[in-house]
Every structure is written in C-alpha cells, then in structure tokens.
C-alpha cells in the first residue's frame, strides 16, 4: 500500500519514525509529512490525485483545520500510544479530528464500549518496540545503579500520583542503589540498551487501566532489561508472569521489596528471565508485528466497505 504519514519525524527515536520504517520493511511505500510544515492545499491535492491508499495520522497538538473534506477520498487511520479514557484529556474525544478518522488505533483495550458511545471506530493494538533496537546493549560503567526506573516522573500526569510515590519510595528503600533516568535530557537508542544491560533490575510502572499498558514493557524487555512491573488486568494474557518479567501488585510494598531483593541476589534466575522476556518480545511484539495487525485491520475494514 501507499501511505501518507503525518507525524513528527524530526528525531530517530520518535515512534512515527519507527513505525514508518517498519511499514517500509514490510514492503509498503511511506511518504512522511512533517506535522506543522504542511499546507492543507497540498494535502488536499495529493489525496485527490488518488496516489495513496492510507492517510496515517499521529496524535499531536497540531490540528490541520477542518478534515471533513477528506470524506471517503482516502482511508484515514489514527494511531497513538496513549491512554485517554479516564483522564482529563478524554474530553478531546469529542472534538479532535484524530478521533473522527475511519480507523482509530490505541493501546487501550479496556474501553471498547466507551469508544463506541463516542462514535469512534476504535481498534486495540498494543504498543511495541522497534525491531532494530531489540538487542542486548554493552554494559557501561557510567550506569552504576543496580535498580533503575526509566521515564518521566517529575511532572507526570496529575491523574497518576502513584508514579512519583514509587520513585520516592525506591529512593527511600534503596538509596544509592537506585536511580531514575534520564537524569538530564533524554536517553534513547544504544545508550538506553546500555543502561538496561548495566542495571540488574528495571522497575516499571503504568497508569492503571484494564487492558492498557504503556510501551515501557516492550521497550525494557526488547532492549534486554530485567523488569519488575505492576500487574494489570489483561497483561497475563500476553506475557507469562515469572517467565518474561516479574509482576507485583500496585501498592504492595512488601511484595515489591521482597521481589527486588530476591532478584538482586539471584543472578542466574534473573538472567534467565531477562533472556526469555527479550526473546519473546523480539519475536512477537515489535512494530513490525503491530504494523501487520494494523494492515489486517485495514484490509478487514476495506472488505466490509466493498
């Protein structure tokens, strides 16, 4: 298929870049359009010329005016990796053009009824990891903490104060053994793989919503990290607890501490879980796999229309 993809392609680590590359790896043609640098007139002309099958749109702050003119001239697909229902930003489901596309894809598998009420043609596709970044990094002496957390935590979503408490608790319990990352700027690419290789344990977190989890799980496991992550309803259907990563219950301090302490000491078991988690994600959960799912969805939607 020929894809028009509107997103932020400024940085290699952006998900849009990785998805576009994955689509191309599957043999598709992808025309990348930098959001904010687009002329609606050009977009109209391009779509009306009939050279493209799909317009893929990533969620950004930019709104390309009134999209009603697109009509059925091209199949429009929105794909984002965030949770909306249950948060303040749920209000955007009412008016943002992103939610009015023919197909809307998010990793929220727990609110299908709500999406239907909003009139959104929603499909659940879980997050993933870039296949090219699924490898074991080299250990780096600069990353000298045994326990790490990677992601935003200082100014996180106000609906999820748990994140900040988790970081503060880990600092309190483990002191110098623990550090959140990044410490400044961003950490991505090979450096992130090195961090995961260097740390014994990565503690994960995800804003709780049934059948929703962030891409953190795939990123950590895919890049070769050993993960302890909260249990989420639905997660056990994709992963095997204790084999791919170690779960704990939100708020269960004793359980979290016991499991961290256990795996700080038991290197062999820890490395076996690290290996299994990595292999599983690499073979099942990359953006190549997710793109295949999206393509199937598109084919099904199209066949229903004709």
């Amino acid at each position: 298929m020929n894809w028009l993809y509107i997103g932020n392609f400024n940085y290699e680590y952006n998900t849009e870049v990785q998805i576009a590359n994955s689509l191309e790896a599957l043999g598709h043609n992808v025309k990348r359009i930098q959001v904010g640098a687009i002329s609606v007139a050009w977009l109209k002309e391009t779509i009306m010329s009939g050279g493209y099958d799909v317009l893929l749109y990533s969620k950004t702050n930019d709104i390309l005016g009134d999209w009603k003119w697109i009509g059925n001239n091209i199949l429009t697909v929105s794909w984002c990796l965030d949770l909306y229902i249950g948060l303040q930003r749920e209000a955007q489901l009412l008016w943002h053009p992103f939610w009015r596309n023919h197909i809307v894809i998010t990793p929220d598998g727990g609110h299908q009824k709500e999406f239907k009420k909003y009139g959104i043609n929603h499909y659940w596709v879980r997050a993933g990891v870039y296949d090219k970044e699924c490898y074991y990094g080299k250990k780096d002496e600069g990353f000298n903490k045994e326990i790490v957390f990677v992601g935003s935590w200082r100014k996180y979503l106000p609906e999820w104060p748990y994140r900040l408490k988790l970081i503060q608790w880990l600092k309190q319990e483990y002191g110098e053994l623990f550090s959140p990352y990044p410490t400044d700027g961003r950490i991505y690419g090979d450096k992130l793989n090195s961090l995961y290789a260097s740390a014994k344990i990565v503690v994960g977190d995800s804003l709780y919503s049934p059948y929703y989890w962030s891409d953190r799980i795939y990123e950590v496991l895919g890049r070769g990290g050993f993960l302890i992550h909260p249990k989420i309803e639905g997660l056990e259907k994709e992963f095997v607890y204790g084999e791919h990563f170690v779960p704990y219950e939100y708020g269960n301090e004793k359980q979290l501490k016991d499991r961290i302490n256990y795996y700080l000491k038991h290197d062999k078991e820890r490395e076996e879980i690290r290996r299994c988690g990595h292999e599983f994600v690499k073979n099942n959960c990359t953006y190549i796999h997710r793109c295949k799912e999206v393509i199937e969805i598109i084919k099904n939607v199209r066949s229903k229309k004709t």
Partner: protein
Amino acid sequence: MIMGYGVCGPDITTRKHMRKTLDEFKRICDRVIIVANRINDFQYALIKNYGFEIYNDDREWGVYQWRIKEDFIKKFIPKIKPDYLLCLDMDEVFYRAVSGRELVEMLGDNIAGYFYFVYMRNDENHYNPNYALWNVRFWQYRPELSLDWEKKSLHCGLAPKVYYELGIRLPVIIKHYGLFTEEERREKTERYKKYDPEGKQKSTFYYQMIQKDTETRKIDWQELEKEVKEFIKNNPEKSASEKLRIKYPVNMKKNYYVRNPHGLVVIIGESHLNETLARDGFELLGEVTEKRTGVEETSSVVGKVELPVVETSVKKEPYECEFCGFVAKNQGGLQLHKRKHKDSEL
C-alpha cells in the same frame, strides 16, 4: 532538475544587466521561465533567443508584486515539480561561476539557501559596503510546504515566505547591480517614493541613503570570499528540521474546567469550549487560572513514603509463586515450579 525564474521589468537596471543574468540561468538551469512585467519587444526577443519560456503578467509591479510572484509560482511549480529552484533578479550575477551541481551539494539536506549580496557601485571594482545582505535565491521544492508569499507590495522576496524561515547561509556571493549608476539609483528612489512614500515597507532612511550614501570601497573578491566563509563557520545555524520544530510551537490559550457526563472534571481549550458546552451533560466550572504542572517532585520528603493503594480489577491468584509471580494452575504445579528457586539456592 533545477528550474530558474526571475521577473523582468522595463526599468533601466533590468534593461542594462539582464543579459548577464540570463547567461547565469543558461549556465545553471535545466528549464527557465521568466515572468515578463510590461517589458519591451527587445527584452522579449532577447529572452526568447535564450530559449526560455515567458509568462506575462502586466499588473502594476509596485502594487501587485507579491501577487505576481505568488500566482506564477503556484501556477507552474506544482505542475513542473522541479527538484530545485534558482531565482535571480535581472540585475544579479554570481561572482564566481558556480555550477548547479555545486549549489545542490552546498545546500545538502537543507531546504533553502541564502546567498551573500554585494551592491556594485559605479564600476566593477567597487561596491558599497553598507548594503551587503543575505537573501534567499536557491530552494528545494518541497510540495508539502506552503507556496504563500510575504504579503508586501515591495521587498516581498523572491521565494515563498516559509523558505526564508528555513534557509541557511551558503558561501555564494552575488554581484547586485541595482544601485550601480546614478541613473539607476535615482530610478529606484523614485519608485520607492511612489509606492512606499511613508516608508512602511522599508525605512525611509534606507531610501534616502540610496542616493546620499556615496561610500564605495575597492573590492578584493578573494578576501571577501574568505570573510563570507569565515562568517558562516563562526555562526552555525540550526538545521531545517530544527527550524521547523521551532516554527510551530504549541499555542497558549485560555483553558476551562468542565465537568463531563461521566462526572470527570476535564480541561477544555477556549477554541472548543462553546462546541463542548452545547452538548448535553457538560457543565462549565470555571477558568483554569493556575499553570498546569502535573505532579511536582518535592525537594525533600517529610516522613516515611508509602506506596498508595490502587484499586484494580486484577484477580488474586491462589497459586502464585511468591518469588517470581508465576501463576500455576494448581498446588502441584506451584510446588513443581518452586523447585526451580530451591535449585538456584543450592
């Protein structure tokens, strides 16, 4: 493909110098279209002799300049789809005969290139140092970028506005003959007096100095070329993608607290407030006055930190391994699994 374009008018400067500019187009470009604005038969024949195409637009230059340029570009460029465009006024000439290939290599991954302009004065060996400037003359056609012009009747540029915002400086020197002789300077000043008497498009000081500023300096081209390269090296610029990112920041507008039909308090931007309140079940609570910062880290934590209790729909598993969280189907399975942990203790 490099396409060349320029606007040819009936003014003295153009009539005197246009042949040199047409030579440049011939040397560099694969295809050239000249916009003819009230030119005479001689100019017409000259352009045709070069094998260039002519597009006529006789609207009054001093009033419709930006429209003439924008209409031309929008009419032709999306159809022709050149890879690059070279634009020159009919009194502009390269100091050194750069090739099209060199220009493309210099531009690289960038979107538009600024050349350095030297205003020649009285003869080929002198210039006015107070009028050197940078201007966009070479750009890569990007169909997704706007072809809108700077909407000014004078000094509106020779490329679409966005390319000016994304351009980088290139070490290319242009000899500009627009203020070459007294006669040409006078004609220019008269034109500016007619179309911009109050100096709204450019300061009246600039217009006055065209006539009054008689400073000329002998030009050392090699030295100047070195200075230009040095200047570029010492003033590194952001890449085009960086500039694009900066150009489109998020707009800061008013926000409002609204209770939605689920009972959740949400924040709605002002541009969508009316549309939201028109729907059933939405209640306006008030304007967001404090800056939304999310959950802030406190610099010091007073007292013991406890993990909050989170209500979830996760079921308790009766046969869960306390070490790794593995869930067995039954007690026997769990005992079997736990041997793995005992073995690792040994």
